[in-house]
């Protein structure tokens, strides 16, 4: 279990006319070689900002690292100069963006765009770069790659463009691939193809993936581990089974219950009441307390620390404190817990006790 990236106590703020927006308020996580870590949460929860700060893609005049570090191969990415960062960006760490319609340059052939990182980061001739670009297109499943090299983005469909964006991201065999909602703009059938492609490629080149999405179905499909973000913090992190079958944080409960499963009967869909917190003046204590049916008095006073559920599973909720009253999660969550040997609702026979 080799750690490839370590994010520690990261705090980041934006300076706006309205005041300081505390977008990330103490984020900790590790990324292990070859794994896929999914980050889920609502818009404004800080998931995109976290990854953009790893890539150092945030505007320098308005954003500020307040605290913490991002360790990659022993280097702290928050301290690097722009020149040093340029050598890492697109080579060791690369990114796939949400909207394949806007992340490609409409005035450049796609061949040129794929060759760009190869020529920039590796000391190779144009003809070698061209050959590699063709191979990459073939790798991402593009038919007739030779002919396609000379075409422009508007000549491709949405799914094909996302394949091209993936080819560009993979051009230098990155150690970390950050995918920011890569399938949100695509249809389900195309989404399924892109997810299969990403999983295949991950096996082939053994890169680590940080996958940002708000679609929990996609998370269940791709992730090894899941981090749930809310109000600029990670509120729960664990393996994909732990998060889906034994969730502990009320926000995770809310997220999981607000998605209708295909066998949901006709009862009312659970909706988390209210709206996400305003990070201009973040609430005291647990940021989710105001929207939670399970809030304790202390939630409004003190920020909960991470409580350990298992070696891989941590959740920041006072409900896990030994003095907290024992509560039953929503029905839909209990149904999930019944399937999981580590949970106190387990109904199997594999000797699972809480």
């Amino acid at each position, binding site marked *: 279990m080799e750690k490839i990236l370590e994010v520690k106590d990261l705090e980041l703020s934006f300076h706006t006319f309205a005041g300081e927006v505390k977008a990330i308020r103490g984020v900790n996580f590790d990324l292990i070689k070859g794994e896929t870590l999914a980050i889920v949460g609502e818009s404004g929860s800080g998931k995109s900002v976290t990854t953009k700060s790893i890539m150092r893609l945030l505007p320098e005049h308005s954003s500020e690292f307040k605290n913490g570090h991002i360790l990659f191969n022993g280097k702290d990415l928050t301290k690097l100069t722009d020149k040093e960062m340029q050598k890492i960006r697109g080579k060791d760490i690369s990114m796939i963006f949400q909207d394949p319609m806007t992340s490609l340059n409409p005035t450049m052939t796609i061949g040129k765009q794929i060759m760009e990182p190869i020529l920039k980061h590796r000391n190779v001739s144009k003809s070698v770069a061209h050959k590699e670009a063709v191979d990459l297109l073939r790798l991402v499943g593009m038919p007739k790659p030779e002919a396609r090299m000379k075409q422009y983005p508007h000549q491709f469909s949405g799914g094909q463009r996302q394949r091209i964006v993936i080819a560009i991201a993979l051009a230098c065999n990155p150690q970390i691939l950050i995918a920011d909602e890569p399938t949100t703009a695509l249809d389900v059938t195309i989404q*399924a193809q892109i997810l*299969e492609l990403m999983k295949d490629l991950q096996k082939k080149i053994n890169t680590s993936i940080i996958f940002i999405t708000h*679609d929990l179905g996609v998370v269940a499909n791709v992730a090894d581990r899941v981090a749930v973000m809310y109000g600029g913090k990670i509120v729960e992190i664990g393996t994909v089974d732990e998060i889906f079958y034994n969730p502990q944080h009320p926000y995770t409960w809310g997220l999981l219950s607000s998605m209708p499963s*295909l066998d949901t009967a006709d009862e009312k869909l659970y909706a988390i009441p209210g709206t996400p917190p305003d990070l201009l003046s973040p609430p005291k204590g647990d940021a989710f307390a105001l929207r939670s049916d399970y809030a304790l008095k202390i939630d409004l006073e003190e920020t909960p620390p991470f409580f350990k559920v298992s070696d891989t599973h941590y959740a920041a909720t006072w409900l896990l404190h030994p003095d907290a009253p024992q509560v039953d999660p929503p029905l839909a969550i209990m149904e999930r817990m019944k399937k999981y040997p580590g949970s106190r609702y387990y109904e199997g026979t594999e000797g699972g006790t809480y």
Partner: protein
Amino acid sequence: MAEKLLEIKNLKQYFNQGKPNEVRAVDDISFDIYKGETLGLVGESGCGKSTTGRTIIRLYDATDGQVIYDGVNVHDKKSKKDLKEFNRKMQMIFQDPYASLNPRMKVLDIIAEGLDIHGLVKNPKERKERVVELLETVGLNREHADRYAHEFSGGQRQRLGIARALAVNPEFIIADEPISALDVSIQAQVVNLLKELQEEKGLTYLFIAHDLSMVKYISDRIGVMYFGKLVELATAEELYANPMHPYTQSLLSAIPLPDPNYERTRVRKSYDPANHNYQDGEEVAMREVTPGHFVYCSEKEMKSLKAISSSK
């Protein structure tokens, strides 16, 4: 669910008709919508589902076919007065809550626009009261009336879009991907709101979407579209439990569910239209395989589908 509110008969919408770049966005589809039900329409982008919605409400003039609303064909040329009355009965909620609200207008005026056009309020005081009432119906409040659209979040804007549609007391609402642009937790709020309003006011919905799990949740019946054709139509339960058209099967098998164990074993089916092997002259049409379950198929396919479903 006996009374038909809307009958769509052989509706066609071709763009660039007769030119080399002719697009048959909607190609001869027929279905009914019953009073008080929610009909879901699903399919991939470009399959013609939005065009169908827009043609029904006359944002496009149909190339051919009929849309019969309460016994009257809405595409017949009619007087301005009749059209206005028809426009009041049928309203639309749009996909993008950012693009569908005028940024230069106050919420009060956005929502009251329909009231003004149809002369439903007599004086400014009544106008304001009606808007406030509508805002409260969709879970907003009085203070919001004097704000501009940019002061609202995505979910709130979609509520404004719903309030605007409700202003003129419509009977039938076309919701074109009303939740696609929203966060998961907010999606649930909006879907619950739409369901509540339906029960309260007896509304009929045509719900267009590509998120198949939400569609199943909100719809009574679901139609699946592929390349301008309706390929399958059945009750929501039946469609998911027993999809018959290979395209529907492929679409359903592509949905990832929030269940890791299921995801590890899910097998995706792909759809190739060539597999049908239709012979020349073979008539392919919507056929009722089991009661209420229609599939676009040939006579031969119908026989084998019937055999399969009766052996179950």
